[in-house]
């Protein structure tokens, strides 16, 4: 697996958000920030000046609790301002611990309860086909989220409706395997009729080439990109499945984390 610090700036912003907001999921965000960053830098057709541009591609963060990663990327792309970020988890702000489509520019679905964003994306995929539009949909799921029955209901629907405009990215950081060890996700997605590939979810080059290729999908099948990731990627102190899932760093821990990321 290619080791990388290419998104350390985003990771520092994530830590700042959580430290100042005193809430958030740092390891989950570190697990997916490279995926979201690649999508918004290299793949998605979006217009920050017009978040509801009809020709845009859609990104839906089905595992909504990783939203601090999305917020930092949306800010980098110009959907959000520094003032917006400064209100994270503040009364009156627009940024909470789960993304809200009615508050946050660029957020397409309010998620947080797992197993909702993916079927919502399937509806968008079917709707775009009905309208003969070429927009693409990318949906990011957690591997723990793949325990939800609605995920497999939706996979069934996406394949049967031949949603070649839909790409599912699974953040395969082994969270799900902590609970249910039989976890052969690639085989499951293949068996449901998805074009399925396994990549390094922290490698800029692999992410870029795979997600761009999915955009050009010429089969009649949806795509599943199983991204091998590490929860807390980039800072050994918080990597893995320990107590850091929803932990707020102390001042000393904040300094240690920032030192690693600097």
């Amino acid at each position, binding site marked *: 697996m290619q080791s990388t610090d290419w998104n350390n700036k985003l990771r520092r912003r994530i830590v700042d958000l959580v430290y100042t907001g005193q809430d958030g999921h740092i390891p989950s965000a570190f697990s997916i920030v490279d995926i979201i960053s690649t999508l918004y830098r290299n793949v998605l057709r979006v217009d920050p000046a017009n978040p509801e541009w009809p020709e845009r591609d859609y990104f839906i963060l089905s595992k909504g609790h990783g939203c601090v990663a999305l917020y930092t990327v949306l800010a980098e792309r110009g959907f959000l301002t520094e003032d917006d970020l400064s209100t994270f988890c503040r009364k009156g702000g627009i940024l909470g611990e789960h993304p809200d489509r*009615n508050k946050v520019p660029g957020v397409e*679905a309010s998620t947080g309860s797992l*197993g909702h964003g993916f079927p919502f994306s*399937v509806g*968008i995929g079917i*709707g775009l086909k*009905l309208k003969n539009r070429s927009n693409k949909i990318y949906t990011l799921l957690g591997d723990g989220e793949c325990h939800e029955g609605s995920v497999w*209901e939706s996979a*069934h629907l996406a394949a049967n409706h031949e949603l070649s405009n839909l790409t599912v990215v699974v953040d395969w950081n082994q969270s799900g395997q902590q609970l249910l060890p039989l976890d052969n996700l690639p085989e499951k997605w293949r068996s449901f009729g998805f074009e399925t590939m396994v990549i390094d979810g922290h490698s800029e080059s692999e992410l870029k080439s795979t997600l761009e290729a999915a955009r050009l999908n010429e089969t009649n099948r949806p795509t599943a990109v199983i991204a091998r990731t590490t929860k807390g990627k980039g800072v050994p102190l918080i990597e893995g499945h320990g107590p850091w899932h929803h932990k707020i760093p102390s001042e000393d821990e904040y300094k240690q984390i920032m030192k690693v990321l600097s």
Partner: protein
Amino acid sequence: MTTVIGIDKPIREQFADTMLRVGKRDEELVVMVGDISHGVLSPFREEFPERYFNVGILESAMISMAAGLSSLGFRPVVHTIAPFLLERAFEQIKLDFCYQGLPGNLVTVGSAFDYSNLGSTHHCYGDFAMLKTLQNTDILFAGSASEFDVLFDQAYSNHRLSVYRLPSRSHGVEIDPRDIRIGEPIKIREGSDITLIATGPQLASVVGAVDQLVAEGWDPEVLYVHSIRPMATKLIRESIGKTGKFVTVEEHMEAGGFGDDILRVTRDMPNITSASIAIPGTFVLDYGTYDEHLETLGMTPDGVVRKVAETFGQR
């Protein structure tokens, strides 16, 4: 008031006719079914195959998928058996439609214990209570074919979630379609000393009780409610303010039913006495016909007369 019991078109058939009629003028209307009603909906399917989805037996994903379609500007109509659509997929309804402020239409069959012999797995008589906890949601109980047609026209393209309960049987009371307005109760009979308020097919029980009550010296005022939410209160308060007594009749659990709404509407009014004919807080465990269930629960003309006598004594 003319009563014409039994001549109305089956309401599910009207639902299909309405989909075809509205679908012809509105190309954003999309019909999604959970593997039911293929026969009656075949005209819509044949006319608009691209806008008809027999989604499958996966109600949770079907609701979220419908919300996704709604976010693109489609007007989804999701249709299957009430407990599977509302109770199984309640969180999807709450978050994907209501919280996100997306409009849509949910059309259920299997009202209350309509599927009497299928048992509790196919009953749904707590739906008003559940749905009343949701914002941005209308709850419509069309008691006749023409009511469904009119109410759907009025509600389907508003910016809210509309949930329609389709009963298997019409109340059989003729109501001028021009009097049907979403949210507005209808006065069926002018009276002076007791208010009888029914929703859905139970209007038949109330109307059927009038002659006997009159014979006993009562002069009942009859109100009919097809919109559980929204529900305008002016007519209800005026009537109960006049009579000082009311009985509600509904094929729903007493807790959380529309009778509770009427109590809330009248709680600042002095010297009001009331009674409710509804399903008590237990499962409807027995089998048998719909009519046998109505008899057991007192949801008949005789049951209404008995409830009036038990609650208010002889006139």
